[in-house]
Structure formats: C-alpha cells, structure tokens
C-alpha cells in the first residue's frame, strides 16, 4: 500500500495538516491490496468455527481497478481512473440451516488489515444474525410446509489456486487522456459523416478485476482478469424520417490491445465504429420490413445468434430459474415443470443442434473457478437436439441430484452469486454460410441482433435485427430496416435444418438477473443457422 502519489501541492499541504491532526488519509486501492488482506480474510473465516450451528461460510473480496472515458459527437464528456473494493459474506447457520448474507463496499481509509478485519468481523456477525433468524423461522413454519428443507451444498473440491490476468498491454499503463482522445476522435469521426448522423457516442473502459474466494471448507482461490470494452451508439436520421439507432460493443477479457484490433472483428475500435455508423446511415434509406402472419425461411447470422442462444437456450438452462427461484423476476424455464416432469433427456431441437456453456474458452464468460470455488467446466446443454444438463450452483445441484458444474457468479463481490451463463453458444456445424444462403429459394437473412423480448418461461421470443435482407433464389437482394423475427422457442429449434461452420463468440455485457438486479457480462455466439420464424416490422405510431 502507498499513499496516493498523484496529489496536487495544495492537497498535499492539506493532507500533511490532516496527518498532523491525526485525520486518516485514504490509501489508494490497487489490486495488489488483496495480498495484504488475504490473511485477514482467512483469519475471520477461521473464527466463524466458534459460532453455534454455523455450517458454512464463504467470503469474496474483490477489487476492480479501471480507467474510463466517454465522448459524444467529438466532445469530451468524462474520464477517470478509479478502483473499488468490496466484500460479500455468505453463511449457512441454524438447526435447519438457512442462508444469511452481508455485503459492503470498502473505502481506502478502511483498507488496512486491522480496520478491514473489524469491518469483516461486523459483516460476519450480521450474516450470522440473519441466518439464525431465518433458520428459526423456517423451523417454525416447517410443520405446515414440508418442502422447507435445510440447505445442502453438493460437494466440490476445495481448491487453492492463483490465476493472473492476461493481457498484452496492461490497462493500468494506458494514460487516461489517451483513452479520452480515442473517444473524442472516434465519436467525432462518426458524427462527422454528415448531418444525417445527429448523435454518436463512444464509451471505453479498461481495467483489471481481481477476486479472492475463501471458505470454511478450505478453499482459497485468487483469480484476476483484465477487461477492456468499447461501447458505440450511433443515431442516423434522414429529414423527417424515423431515426435508425445502433448500439454495439467491442470487448474481451484482455488488455488495451482489444481496442487496437485483437478482438472478434479483428478491427480497431475506430474502424468498428466507422463501419457501424455507415451501416446505420445506409439503413435510413431502406424500406421497413413488412411483418408476416406465417413463418418464413430465415437464415440468422452469428451475431444475431449470440442473442438468440442467450435468450432461448442460455436462460432456460439456468438451474435457479428452472427451480423457480426467479419466478417473480427473470421468470421460469419451460424445460422443468417439476423434478419428475421435465425435458431432461428429451428432444427439444433438431438433431443438428448442439449447444454448450463453456467458461474454459476465451470470451466474456471465461473463468477457471466460479463464485463458489467450483472448478469451471464445459456444460453440454443440448446434444444432437436432446436437452442434457442445466447450468447450476452447489445448492441447485444438490436438489437436482446433479454434479455442480461451476456456473455461479456475482457482478460485484458484495452481490449474492446467481447461476449465470458463461460462454454459452450454439456449437459449430459443417456447412458454409454461403451454401446455407444459396439453398434458400425464398427467405430472409437476419443480420446482427438488436433487442430481445422473451416470454416468461422462455417458450416464445421476439428479437429485432440491425439489418434484414431478402433472399431470392439463393441471392441476397433487398435491404430492409426495423425488422426481426418471432417464434415459439421449441418450434424454432426443431426447424433448424442447417448449421454453419462460421462459429464466433460475441461480448454481451448487460445480462440482467436477480433482485436487486445484477448486470453480468457473458459470451454468446454460434454459427449461421437456418430455420423458420415469422417476420416482425415497424408499426407506424
């Protein structure tokens, strides 16, 4: 730890005065702080052994050190470099064990081992009080509600491991003024295309996230990753027309090199933004896509399929949703009505369809251990059209009598972990996209996802596309705007008759789930697919 070196002379004077007066000065939070606080976490966890009926405790301590900038239409709107430190405690306690949780951000002033130890200890006491009160109430109501059960966690290896972040160019070494300059230049270039581009904005963040996980089972895992992301928004509008809006991301769990071309598009942020701006402008001259009342042949590209697999495969295969824990919020899953009546082992898609969730490969959903310390592994969700497995956490695995597969994550360390998608994708096929398109006599090519709306148990969807093209006799012809597709999920999956060999994973940074809602980054993707769906369009308002 060191005192902030980047302070002004005036502030230094004030700080010196404060030191003399005994006013504490904040330490600058850096990811290295975890090395200093590790022993404190281990000690506090050890001390929970003296708490009556305390069955299990885990603590996550996380630091995110980041730089960011934002510009609109070539004008600076903000920049900064900051770090956040927070912790979360999960505890199982009571005769019929129940959960209690406490989480809190921590400031630099409290980041010394002694002060942090006190805060953590207070948090343990809060989590314990909640777990005990909860367990007592559970016991009180159990005679009238037999399904109330003590929490069981399926077994997992208690690992000790350290994983470092991977990058070519350390996000911490990039001057924040360079980040702002990139935002100003890129948004200015997009806006400068012409008067029909009234708005263009660029947001960039680059940083390192590091989290320590320790539990009473003996796990102690320290893993870090870099994160670099560029977000573009562009609005194009011809005089008096309906604006066309594009919102897209470039990102990966790596360093600054991501925005210089080491990404899925193999494009720099500036080139990517320029491409999207021109595509959006081109769309303003296209006709609106007419909606259809009957399904038509649709070919969906990998970018579109990223959101499709997210909504109709990823979410319904989350075990917490299937076990009804999200009934009031993100919804249930049509794949599990109850433990006896469900789709496990049944055909839910064409035999050409394979889908999996794999945190072990690169992408926004990459990690080696989940937020419960369970080793990450590939989860085969759909094999040859047959539904095989849910993504789960240890509690859900115990209920389902499955093995835990390491799918729990929390957005920040002070949030409660939930089952989240990892890199959840349609598997690659063996047909070229050109061949898939060439076989279509009369259909539509659905290009790049936009916005989803999915029904409560994920049984029906409507997803809009950035662009839709008519396909006639195997050739792409007319461009349409403001279109998309809608279908029942199972019908769409069962009607897939071609799977491309152009697999890609895209960054999805904003998946919302839980209460309070947590926004999570996941990787989604797949190859080109061909199926049947109704077309949706613009309704003049």
């Amino acid at each position, binding site marked *: 730890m060191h005192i902030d070196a*980047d302070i002004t002379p005036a502030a230094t004077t004030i700080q010196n005065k404060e030191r003399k007066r005994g006013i504490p000065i*904040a330490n600058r939070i850096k990811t290295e702080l975890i090395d200093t606080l590790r022993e404190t976490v281990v000690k506090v966890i050890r001390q929970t052994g003296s708490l009556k009926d305390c069955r299990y405790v885990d603590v996550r301590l996380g630091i995110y050190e980041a730089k960011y900038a934002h510009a609109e239409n070539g004008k600076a709107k903000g920049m900064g470099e900051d770090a956040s430190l927070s912790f979360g405690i999960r505890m199982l306690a009571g005769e019929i064990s129940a959960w209690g949780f406490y989480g809190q*951000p921590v400031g630099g002033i409290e980041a010394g081992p002694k002060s942090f130890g006190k805060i953590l200890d207070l948090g343990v006491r809060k989590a314990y009080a909640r777990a005990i009160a909860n367990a007592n109430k559970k016991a009180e109501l159990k005679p009238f509600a037999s399904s109330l059960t003590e929490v069981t966690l399926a077994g997992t290896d208690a690992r000790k491991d350290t994983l470092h972040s991977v990058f070519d160019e350390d996000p911490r070494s990039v001057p924040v003024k360079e980040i702002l300059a990139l935002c100003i230049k890129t948004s200015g270039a997009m806006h400068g295309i012409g008067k029909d581009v009234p*708005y263009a904005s660029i947001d960039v963040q680059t940083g390192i996230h590091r989290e320590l996980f320790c539990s009473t089972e003996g796990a102690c895992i320290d893993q870090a990753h870099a994160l670099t992301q560029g977000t573009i928004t562009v609005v194009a509008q011809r005089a008096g027309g309906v*604006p066309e809006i594009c919102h897209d991301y470039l990102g990966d769990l790596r360093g600054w090199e991501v925005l210089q071309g080491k990404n899925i598009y193999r494009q720099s942020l500036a080139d990517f933004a320029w491409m999207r701006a021109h595509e959006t402008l081109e769309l303003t001259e296209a006709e609106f896509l007419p909606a259809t009342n009957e399904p038509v042949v649709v070919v969906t590209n990998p970018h579109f399929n990223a959101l499709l697999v997210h909504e109709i495969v990823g979410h319904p295969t989350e075990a917490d949703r299937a076990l009804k824990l999200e009934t009031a919020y993100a919804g249930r899953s049509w794949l599990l009505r109850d433990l006896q009546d469900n789709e496990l082992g049944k055909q839910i898609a064409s035999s050409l369809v394979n889908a999996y969730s794999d945190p072990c490969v690169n992408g926004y959903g990459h990690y080696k251990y989940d937020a419960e310390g369970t080793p990450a592994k590939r989860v085969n969700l759909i094999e040859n059209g047959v539904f095989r497995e849910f993504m789960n956490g240890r509690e859900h695995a115990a209920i389902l009598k499955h093995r835990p597969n390491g799918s729990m994550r929390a957005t920040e360390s002070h949030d409660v972990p939930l089952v989240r998608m990892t890199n959840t994708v349609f598997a690659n096929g063996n047909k070229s996209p050109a061949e898939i398109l060439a076989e279509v006599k009369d259909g539509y090519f659905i290009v790049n996802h936009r916005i989803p709306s999915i029904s*409560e148990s994920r049984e029906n969807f409507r997803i809009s596309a950035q662009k839709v093209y008519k396909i006639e006799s195997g050739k792409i012809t007319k461009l349409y705007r403001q279109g998309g597709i809608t279908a029942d999920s199972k019908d769409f999956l069962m009607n897939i008759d071609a799977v491309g060999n152009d697999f890609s994973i895209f960054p999805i940074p904003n998946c919302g789930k839980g209460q309070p809602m947590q926004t999570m980054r996941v990787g989604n993707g797949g190859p080109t697919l061909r199926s049947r769906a109704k077309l949706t369009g613009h309704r003049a308002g």
Partner: protein
Amino acid sequence: MIDTGMLRTCVRDGIDFLKKQKDVIDAEVFASWNEHITVRINYTSDIPCNGIHEPKSTQGCGIAVRVVFGSGKETKVGFGSSSNNITPGGVVEAFNKAKRNKIYDPDFVSLPAPVGKAVLENYHDPAVFEISDETIVHLGWQGLKGALGEYNQKRFRTSIIAGGDITIIKERMAIASTKGIDDFDESTILTTNITSMIERENVKGTGWNTSTHVSHFNPEEAGRESAERAIKTIGGERISSGTYDVIFGRQPVADLFANIVIPALSLSSVNATDTPFLGKLGQMVASELLTVYDDGAIKGAIGSKKISCEGIPTGRTDLIHNGFLVGFLANNYLSKKFASKVASFVPRNGFRFEKGKRSHTRQPGIFPTNIVIEGKEEVSGRSLLSKLSNGIYIGRIWYTYPMNGLAAGDFTSTIIADSYVVKGGEIVNPLRPNTVRINSNIMDIIRKIIAISNDKRQTIVWGSEEVVHTPEIAVQGVQLDNISDFIG
C-alpha cells in the same frame, strides 16, 4: 451508521476547503450513506426450498465532488469520488480525482444554483433506520405466510410457488456548493412484490405493498393478494391473434411507462435524438384524456425526495397535459444545454440513483421520482370495464422493450398473469398466462386511450427506480398475438 449531521459537516467543510484551492471557480460536495436490504422469498411446495432464500444487504457511504476549474481560456469540469470515507481526507481524495480527470466539455454551462424551497420535511421513518435483522427476516416470512395462508384456506397445497421480496432502502445525503446550495435529505422506502402460482393450473397472481413507514407496511396482505389473484384465474382460455380493445391494469401501465414512455420523456433521450417526442414540444402527442407528470414532493409516496442529488427541491414537472407534450425530465447539465428562448426545463430530476440508492460514485443523471398518470375525465373501474364490448383486461405484462429503439416507438411484451377475457363489459373468463404477446407502437397506445380510471395505486416495476401512480387505462385496437402453442 453515518448520521446526517456528519454528512452535513463533511460537505460544508469540504466546500470551505475547495474554495481555497487554486483555479477552482465553483465546486459542489455531495455525501451520502445508504443501506439496501433485500429479503428474497422463494417457496416451492413440490421442490425442496428455503422459504426465505436469503436475507441480505449492502451498505456504503461516500463523497462526490464536482469542480469547475478556470485556467487559461477554457473552463474545465472534473468529477471525483471517495468511498466509505466521510472525512476531510475523503474530500481531498475526491478533489484529487476531479483535478486529475478534469475535461473541457463545451456543453457544460455551470453548476446548479439554489432554486425555491423544499416542500417535504421529516417524511422518513426513524424506526426504519433502526430496523433489526430479526425484523427484516420476520417481514419476509410474513409475506410468505400471507400467500400460503390464502392457498391453504382455499385447499391448494401442492404445485404452489411463492416468490418475490421485501426491499428496504435507507438513504441519507447532504450537499453544499459554492453556488449557495446547503441542504440534506433523509428517506426510507419499504416495498414488497410477491408473485405466486398454482403451477399445474398455469395460474399466477401478483400482490404488492409499499410504504415509507414500517408501521404501515403489510407484506402479509401482498402475499394474500397474490394467492387470491392466482386462484381467480384458474381455467384460463387462449385467444386467437387479432386486434382487441384492452384495459391495461396497474402493473402493465407502470411497466409501459417505466420502460417506454418515461425514458422517452427525458432530456437524455432528446440529447441522444432517440425519442418519438423529439421536436413535438407543444404538440398533441396523445389522447386528450391523458395527463402525465412527475412529482417528487408527494407526501407519503415512496418515490418522494425532499431535494434532488443536485440540491434542487423536488416538485411537479408536467410532461403531457391533456394530450399535449409540455415538458421533459431534466437535470442541471441538460436543462442548461437545451434551454432556449422558447423552452426551459426545470432541473428537478438530477439524481445519482444506482440500484435504488443515492450513490456517490455517480454523476447526476435524469431519473423520475413519482410518475403520476391522470385522466381528463376519470371514471370508475366498473365504468372502464363497460367500455369493452369484446376485449381483454391485461393485469400483468413482462419483458417490455422498445424493439426498434425508443424513437421508433415499437414495443412488445407478453401477458403473464392476472388477465381476463371481457365480453359485453363483463369479465367472462380468465386469460391463460404466457399465451399472448402484445405487438404495438407506444404512440398508438397513448393516442388511442378511451378512458382512464379514478383509482390509483403506487406500483413498482422490477429493475426500475421510479414509482408509478397508476390508474387502469382502456385503449382501442391493440394487436395481440397467440403464442406458445406447444405448451398446450
């Protein structure tokens, strides 16, 4: 726990410090302490469960400064924050960041100046600040008991799901600036939203309760209401795709406004040229029956605040009046950017909300408080129903999104609960949940309003910060599509 006196001392001393710094033209210091408690309910009669899944909380405090620097020809503005450090050292840390990160933004005019006097005083519940862990857990179990008690009484004991939460938010903030702002705010919010189902019957009901004071908070009633509503919809039917006259109940009205209408009535959307209301100020944009305003100073309402996170007293901002577009929600920054000789926007809605809390890590954005929807000639719920000769009462919708961007107005969502088929002005049968998708355009919806009911209720939507004071609204000619045939 940090008390309000400490926050006030911190921001006042902070301003004294910032005034003395070189090149500082103007400055603002904001300090807050918040706690967000959630008790999540999860009961499944046929699957092992916890009843209350987890009682949890996050809390934090901190300081934010905005500083205007003048050096050379350009004025620069910087933002910095310090977490969990309500001391002079925290102000120094935040100031260092602001100085390091200052930028020239040609759209920035000046920091907020004091305007008027706040209406609300002492509207929070001190008992909520002292609430114990045992009490919060108890409130969660009360919600569950309400649902299970109703099901048990009506002899439904299997295939039951009850989910939802108790949420308690405690907020304290203070703000001072070189422009003369020196004020504070304290608020307490209690909400519960409970969804329960008899899953084998494919029925779902919703109950909710809100209060600023714990003594008036009744999660048990919300649980009971959810079960009662689910039971009422047993035996639901499907409908064929087509255009229907509908009544949007309170939750759908809140959902449509929170996700589509209100975001489009913010200067943020004007700034991004992403709103169907762009260039329509003063024009008729909706049925003459519709009036919409934001009012952060309604006594007893859970969206109310005394002052914004920029220190401006809350109050009423008219948005749509008798169908005419009359205003946009604004913060200080965008109100000054868009001020002109013909239009001005009172910056009452500059808040730093993050997951329901007033966060020091954020610069003020634009957030609604209490959105109130009124009718020109309001009618009773019974009279509203009589407007539908052949239509649908829609009680709960889900996943409402502007499919082609806000400006296009297209939206879709699915009907998931609490809904009925109406014939000859009477409810004749429940509508089966998850079998209908709404495909429409929001401008069509607000233009085709034919009646608005006179009984409003504070309604919240998952993931939204605001509260909508919602009546029920009857609308002509809404496209409803039959979906999910494969689930039977």
